[in-house]
């Protein structure tokens, strides 16, 4: 445990030193405040629209941003150490491969979690203070759910980045594959799903389709943050499938957690078999 924490501590202090933590927090806070303030711009006015609309907009942006940041943060975790020549040295220390990877996960995870809590937390506090007659309780619940799911989504993509990092032997390749993963889950997946729906012309089992959303952590994330308010607004695109899902909020949370655990477990397994 001590060794895991030593590694995590270095990652955390690295991200403080290279200003990653500050930069991500600032980006999150600016985005959240901007969306809160100009949320009603589409309706022709400036000002706070509503909590559900703000969270929905934040989540739509988060889908693009969070996976990208997580992948960038973590793609070189192992391959970077190897190219830097420190992996061999680290492995001669009383430190197992699993401990090294878990330490990295803890360090990167804490970086992302801190940035999320600080960035969106500040924005949430500002909304609560500045916007008149906003329902504090519903805002806090929605923000809490949003921050929690954002952290989980980030952890999932950090784990996916490790899956690449333990497998390849060159940093540029890892960076390329990380972008490919982002592209697939954020842009391609929904298109494939919709395309499949249309092409199948209804021959696919309609009960199966909603479950396919579970194969994409960003869709789970979106469902979690938008479906919670689905009473008030109609859902569009593939998300409408989500309303047919027989799993409740708890099921979605569990699915998101699985998206952290499974890739991390796979990365640990692959790392153990890597030749150093």
């Amino acid at each position, binding site marked *: 445990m001590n060794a895991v924490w*030593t590694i995590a501590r270095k990652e955390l202090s*690295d991200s403080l030193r290279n200003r990653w933590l500050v930069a991500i927090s600032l980006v999150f806070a600016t985005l959240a405040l901007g969306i809160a303030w100009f949320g009603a711009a589409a309706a022709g006015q400036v000002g706070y629209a509503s909590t559900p609309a703000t969270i929905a907009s934040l989540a739509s942006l988060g889908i693009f941003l969070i996976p990208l940041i997580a992948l960038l943060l973590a793609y070189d975790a192992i391959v970077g150490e190897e190219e*830097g020549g420190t992996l061999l040295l680290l492995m*001669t220390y*009383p430190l197992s491969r699993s401990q090294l990877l878990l330490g990295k996960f803890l360090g990167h995870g804490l970086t992302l979690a801190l940035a999320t809590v600080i960035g969106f937390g500040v924005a949430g506090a500002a909304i609560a203070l500045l916007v008149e007659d906003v329902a504090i309780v519903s805002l806090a619940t929605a923000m809490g759910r949003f921050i929690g799911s954002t952290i989980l989504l980030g952890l999932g993509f950090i784990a996916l980045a490790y899956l690449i990092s333990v497998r390849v032997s060159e940093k540029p390749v890892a960076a390329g594959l990380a972008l490919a993963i982002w592209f697939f889950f954020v842009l391609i997946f929904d298109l494939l799903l919709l395309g499949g729906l249309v092409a199948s012309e209804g021959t696919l089992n309609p009960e199966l389709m909603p479950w396919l959303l579970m194969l994409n952590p960003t869709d789970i994330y979106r469902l979690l943050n938008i479906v919670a308010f689905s009473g008030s607004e109609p859902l569009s695109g593939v998300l409408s499938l989500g309303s047919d899902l027989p799993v409740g909020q708890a099921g979605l949370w569990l699915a998101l957690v699985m998206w952290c655990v499974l890739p991390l477990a796979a990365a640990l397994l692959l790392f153990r078999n890597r*030749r*150093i």
Partner: protein
Amino acid sequence: MNCFELDNISHSYDRETVLKDVTLQLNPGEILGLFGHNGAGKTTTIKLILGLMKPTAGRLSVLGGQAGDPKVSQHIGYLPENVMFYPQLTGREILAHFARLKGASPAQVPELLAQVGLADAMDARTRTYSKGMRQRLGLAQALLGKPRLLMLDEPTVGLDPVATADLYRLLRQLRDEGTGIVLCSHVLPGVEPYIDRAAILTAGALQAVGDLPSLRRQANMPVTLDLTSAGDVGDLENTINAATRGRETVLRRDGRQLSVDIAPHEKMPVLQELLASGAIADLSIHQPSLEDLYVHFIGAGGLAHRGGAQ
């Protein structure tokens, strides 16, 4: 307890044999030189002892335990060839990080940095370090936690002559305190005075192990006598020819200087005869050096493997 014991160790990957039937051990308080050309299996041997890989066959014990066991690696210091560090951290931060990983006292960090001559540079980022400074930091890293087994791969690369001498003095001191040390180097004349035993690897097999006298006995290479004649060089030449009649010798002449290559066991009888003749004014004896022995054991076959796959 041995520092390590390799018992008929073989290792292969991708169906290629990298080590075959290597039996080697290191005792505490001993410096072992591990020599061989590139791809001879030195790095593989070291990696096996460090527990980075598992042997395909044979028995291996390190510090009385299993290679790679955290309780064992805690007592091993390792300096890799071309050691690299995190460029954005300072020497002190890096050493503190590794000290925490090894469970060594943080008080050791400034001490060790001063010991390797980095006292003035410890708060500079290692990005600015020269090759020699990186090497010193690597050495300080290897010495963390007072290791009982120290493995150094080309430790003197990038070090100036004074730093090199300091390093060897330090290694002697550690050896006298009971540390077992493995030294890999291509600078054979440099390490010759400091090693207690040498192990020579070729193509994954151990060619010879032992201290220098026993390696010389095994190699049975000729000893060279450099002789300066007291009077006429021709007279000395005749005397030598008479003394070495019936023995296998090679005589070379260079001005007033004569050199005789002679088998080790015939050295004393010939010398006695020459001394008795009174024809020599000065005399020096050259034993085969570590480099000569290395070339002898590696042989032509060894050279053919040069540049082979790592």
